């Protein structure tokens, strides 16, 4: 049936629901490579979509949401606020409050992170990074050694699928945007994680496919871009902040 010439008819039957399990699976598989079929399915979903409108709603059982939340955010699903109040987060807040002594605190954080790494069993599920001014050195290591307080701190929680970047000592760049990039491995091209707020923490869902092993020592960088972000898939402006991801425990 996957050689069905009537692509539109096949798409229509897929959406209306009348295919048997084998045909349905075949169409779903073919969809991955067959753009025409995929678009036809999208069109049929739109055409028939309003049929579902009048279907009377049924309240699902009250406990279902918390079950879903647990499946997404883990057992600590109810306590994402708690997870955010990590030493890193508190440190970040203190950095923002204290101009003097910020460098000492940054060094302190680095020690905490190393300690957590050495004492955590199993693959790490949480990472942090300090992003330092890249003018201090062309690589993440040199920048960190040379610089004072970080410009941004980043926390990545693989269990909660979130990544958060907090500006610490960043000067606002009017009509420009800061954009965060991830580079895995030595030679790989950077991939955009998104445009960063210049004044408050930004949190995104983490959807990058990477194992914890891929992320140890992956490099994060922030580039200065036209407002709204780089017009291309790559950084178009200078890299201003750079740092490495290191494992932590949330």
């Amino acid at each position, binding site marked *: 049936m996957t050689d069905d010439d009537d692509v539109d*008819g096949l798409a229509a039957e897929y959406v209306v*629901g*009348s295919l048997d399990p084998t045909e*349905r699976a075949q169409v779903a598989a073919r969809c991955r490579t067959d753009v025409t079929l995929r678009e036809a399915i999208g069109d049929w979903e*739109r055409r028939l979509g*309003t049929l579902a*409108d009048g*279907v009377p709603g049924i309240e699902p059982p009250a406990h279902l949401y918390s079950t879903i939340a647990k*499946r997404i955010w883990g057992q600590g699903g109810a306590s994402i606020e708690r997870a955010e109040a990590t030493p890193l987060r508190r440190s970040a807040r203190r950095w923002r409050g204290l101009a003097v002594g910020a460098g000492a605190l940054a060094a302190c954080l680095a020690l905490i992170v190393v300690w957590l790494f050495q004492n955590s069993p199993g693959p790490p599920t949480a990472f942090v990074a300090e992003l330092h001014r890249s003018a201090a050195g062309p690589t993440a290591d040199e920048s960190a050694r040379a610089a004072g307080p970080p410009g941004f701190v980043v926390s990545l929680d693989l269990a909660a*699928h979130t990544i958060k970047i907090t500006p610490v000592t960043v000067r606002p760049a009017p009509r420009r945007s800061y954009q965060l990039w991830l580079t895995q491995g030595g030679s790989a091209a950077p991939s955009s994680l998104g445009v960063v707020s210049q004044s408050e923490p930004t949190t995104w869902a983490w959807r990058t496919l990477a194992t914890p092993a891929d992320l140890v020592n992956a490099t994060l960088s922030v580039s200065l871009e036209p407002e709204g972000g780089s017009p291309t898939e790559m950084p178009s402006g200078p890299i201003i902040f750079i740092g490495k991801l290191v494992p932590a425990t949330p």
Partner: protein
Amino acid sequence: MPTSKADLTNAISRVAKGDRSAFEALYAATSAKLFGVVVRILVRRDLAEEVLQEVYLRVWQRAAEYDPALSSPITWLVAIARNRALDEVKRKPMRSLEEMPGVLEIANDDDPLADHGRKEEMLRLKACLDRLEPEKSQIVLLAYYYGMTREEIAGRIKRPVSTVKTWLRRSLAQLKDCLGQ
């Protein structure tokens, strides 16, 4: 609770950025609708609850793929829910088809999630369905609302499977012509 098209679109884009409260609000606004759709197809509540969980996991994971230029938020959500329910019902066809109501009509409840434009769209679709012969619009609705396969429909209306296939394809093509899109 977000219920307008703009509210739902906004909630989905915030979910795409990992906003948990937006996800909770989206769930509150849409879960009854999606559960209703899923229960119709699966009948069994325990299966429907399991499927609904997976639907919202997908919504969380795929929110970034939602394109408001391509479909309305509710169409996108319903498509995810129906797809998941259809996969499930085809895998474990355990419903008793005799329990399904004899004659199906387009459900016509006043839907809080449907704005004026969407209601007009639905009326147009209904008018096009009404132009089909009754037996033919029935088979379209049996498939859409209950996820019945051609064979199940054939058993139900006592026609050969090949006839059902021909009728379905022809009816759906006529619907497409009638809708002009």
